[in-house]
């Protein structure tokens, strides 16, 4: 009986909240209710993060125990997570005892470990993107892919800023590509995304699309 009631009740709550939040965008008198619901949503999202981290820990504990070739990565993840958690708790206790915010150790981890790692990974993306652009013609040799490839080439050549290697007309072509066809294409894609977003939202508000279980 409990299972049978769960789906309609959760769907009714989701649809009701969705309708009120949507109406809050258009009807100024219920804006406060919209903000209250959104704030509640943010609090729930924070709790969900805790649940997600516990889930992450349990998944990697299982992977460490099993005969998995990636168990070493899981071990590193668990150690890093617990270490960061302990450091965060120590910082919080220190802040409480000092009576003012003091997150020096946490900031140190972010500044000297996380930030350099993420910056390095960002640099690797440039290599991956170059590889992807170079291999597009191998994957799909059609008119659109050929156009895509040569447009990338033109824009890259037009972006060079080495004085001896700079060709003025390439700058003009690059600017035209960025201002006219690229902007037009981007707007077209955005219109399509907006239409898709509206229909997805309406389907969920109607309850015909329930991506939250049944």
């Amino acid at each position: 009986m409990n299972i049978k009631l769960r789906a309609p009740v959760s769907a009714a709550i989701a649809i009701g909240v969705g309708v009120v939040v949507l109406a809050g965008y258009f009807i100024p008198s219920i804006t406060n209710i919209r903000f209250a619901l959104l704030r509640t949503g943010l609090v729930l999202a924070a709790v969900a993060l805790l649940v997600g981290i516990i889930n992450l820990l349990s998944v990697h504990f299982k992977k460490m125990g099993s005969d998995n070739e990636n168990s070493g990565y899981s071990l590193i993840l668990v150690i890093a997570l617990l270490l960061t958690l302990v450091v965060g708790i120590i910082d919080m206790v220190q802040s409480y005892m000092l009576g003012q915010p003091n997150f020096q150790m946490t900031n140190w981890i972010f500044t000297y470990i996380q930030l350099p790692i993420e910056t390095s990974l960002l640099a690797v993306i440039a290599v991956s993107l170059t590889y992807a652009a170079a291999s597009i013609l191998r994957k799909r040799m059609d008119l659109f892919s050929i156009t895509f490839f040569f447009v990338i080439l033109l824009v890259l050549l037009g972006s060079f800023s080495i004085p001896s290697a700079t060709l003025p007309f390439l700058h003009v072509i690059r600017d035209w590509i960025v201002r006219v066809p690229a902007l037009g294409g981007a707007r077209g894609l955005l219109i399509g995304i907006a239409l898709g977003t509206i229909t997805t939202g309406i389907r969920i508000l109607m309850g015909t699309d329930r991506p939250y279980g049944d």
Partner: protein
Amino acid sequence: MSATGFTGIVVIVLFLGLMIFFSIINQEPKQKNIRPIPAYDKINQEINVSVEDGTQLHISLGRGGITGPESAAALAGLSILKQVIEKSSVCDYPPVVSTGNAVISILAQDTIQGTSKAISVADKGKNPSGELVGVTPFSYAAGTLTTIRDKNVSANIHTGWFGSEITWLTTAGERQSTPTIAGTAQLPAQAVIYASASDPLIGEELYAGGAYLGAGKIHLASISAQDIFRWIIIFIILGSVLLKFLGIDTFFEYILAGSM
């Protein structure tokens, strides 16, 4: 009420009306009436392959949450997840799911459990995980790489909110020689997946998953409603160009400024 608010309500009511209208008049909708999207054909094909070969599909739902502009992409990804799980219910190994957002992770697990109950998968140990892999773009991408490199994964479906880091996922799939179907709402990432994914979903194609994976007639009706609106927008753009060309655009601007 502002002019923007009024226009918003009109658009939503029109959309709703059109979707209900098309779902009523198309009592027996046929999927062949919609244009083919190779990426969705590939998903159907890969589901069959995973059933026959006893392999797994990997579905990554991106980093989008439900309280921001990325929510529609994330929910569209969840909708695709639901359809794929329903269709792959007879697989030896159900799809493995990875997410980069805690809320979507919980919703994914709920979808998995709800759908698995509906398809009577008795062994809960076989259900896909829906785990939260990482909460920053790069930790998510790095964490997902290990799943893509799993030898039992036969295809990767990336649908949701991704940034340029998706190039790691698509390139890793290519190195494993596994098909990669990818769609996102972010424009720079769309350019990336066009170049790097074997089957990209461009623009609104991401949101059409339900219609192409057999989710029901309301999904097909929403495609028809989108088409109507697309034509309306085309006429508005062309009309605006014509009015600008004829120099009458300022006349309408005065009218709008006066009435709203």
